[in-house]
């Protein structure tokens, strides 16, 4: 992606800002401006809490470009407590077994280097929740 694209994505990438549909109240992440549930315009910003649980997960050994140096790495679908399912890497896992249902929370981490100029890209990952809920 180009630098300008990263800049446009900064709110969703660094602060987990999505949208809430003013018509049917669906919480939407990542933002997409048209509500997938009711088809109406949805441009109202919504701040997600960053808390959720592992919905499913795996470990990647053959990475897409930009991630080759990180393999193997755990990647998950996380269910945010507000509802949406988000794809993200897991981090700070240590010896803790990851299972479907493991509580996690969002942190900002380096995702990798992008493009020929090797620009560092930061974004969200999820780690096992430090505080029991």
């Amino acid at each position: 992606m180009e630098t300008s694209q990263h800049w446009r994505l900064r709110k969703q990438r660094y602060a987990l800002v999505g949208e809430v549909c003013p018509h049917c109240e669906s919480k939407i992440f990542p933002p997409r401006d048209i509500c997938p549930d009711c088809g109406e315009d949805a441009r109202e910003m919504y701040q997600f809490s960053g808390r959720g649980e592992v919905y499913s997960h795996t470990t990647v050994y053959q990475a897409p470009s930009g991630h080759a140096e990180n393999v193997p790495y755990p990647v998950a679908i996380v269910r945010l407590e507000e509802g949406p399912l988000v794809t993200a890497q897991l981090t700070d896992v240590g010896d803790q077994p990851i299972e479907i249902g493991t509580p996690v929370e969002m942190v900002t981490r380096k995702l990798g280097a992008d493009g020929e100029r090797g620009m560092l890209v930061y974004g969200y990952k999820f780690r096992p929740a430090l505080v029991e809920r």
Partner: protein
Amino acid sequence: MRPVSIVGTAQLPVQATTQLDLRQLGAQVVRGAMQEAGVERVDALFASNMLGDELQGQKHVAALIADESGLEGIEALQVQAAMASGSAPLRMAYLAVGSGEADLAVVVGVEKMSEGLAAPALSKALDAKEVADGATLISKNADLMRLYRKRYNVPEDGFVNFPVVAHHNARNNPNALFKDMNVNPRTVMKSRMIHDPLRLLDCSPICDGAAAVVLSPAEEARAHSPHPVRILSSTVATDRFRVGDRPNPLWLEAAHKSALKAYRLANVHRGDIDFFEVHDAFSIMACMQLEAAGFADQGQGWHLAEEKRISLRGDIPISTMGGLKARGHPIGATALYQVSEMVLQLRGRAGKNRVREAKIGMMSSVGGAGSTVITHILGI
């Protein structure tokens, strides 16, 4: 629309690597299919190829193959739908011939995955933003398999007969990549874990291949072939692009929609389908397509494999010539292999793998992790 038939087919053996380039691969099967149909000229060529841009630096393959095939000047277009690419030009050719715009059309699929890194390129069928976060096409299928096993209490070896049946069928297909390989449940469970819980033998292979078919109006089909096969319906549906945006990620809504529409347009019932060439790129995808098309309830598709009801003598045979799993999945060519194999089945020429008294077959092609699904029903 006037009815449309398949009057010629050609397939090259699927190989781990071939010395032929895209234009040679394409021309060989175009000429082969035209020869079988007994035609020297077609009105249009529709081509399929997913990775040529990425791996060979080659776009624009339709005109390239038309030229190499000696079809100077004809209409030639490439049609794309990620891993469902082979079925996309098939549908366009069906529409072109059915509408009367063309009287004869050839559909060709080519793929050469042996050069460069195919696996990362396949992830481009997903949302690029998810890939930037570390997801891959394989990781999505691994996520789905883990979720499915947990939600429906499937034992670790619950999917094992999907690859076992596919490999068994491939042994009698001279064009299959794994025609010489013996696979039993133990082989599958001992195969390398590649994206936990996906094992190597849950996944279709990286390979090269090419296949083509010729379409004509049904009323003229017998002039070209003593055994034409009718395209009874051709449908496409899409789903929410990201797996995580779907109300139930374990339900392939696009497969469901396109299958139901295909039954309706072909005027057949699910029970009339004698065999189903599923897009078994991963065991979990085969399972979910069986459910989406109505052959099993949600969460029950794996029992069709467990009870071997998907084998050649079962009530819903799948992957009858090896499927994507064992014939091979040279992406852009895959659907044209499926069609060619279905034509063999429906003509009663599938040898030891013949599905007895097969009159109607269905095939599906899945783009990404179910974002696009294309279904065709063929019959005699």
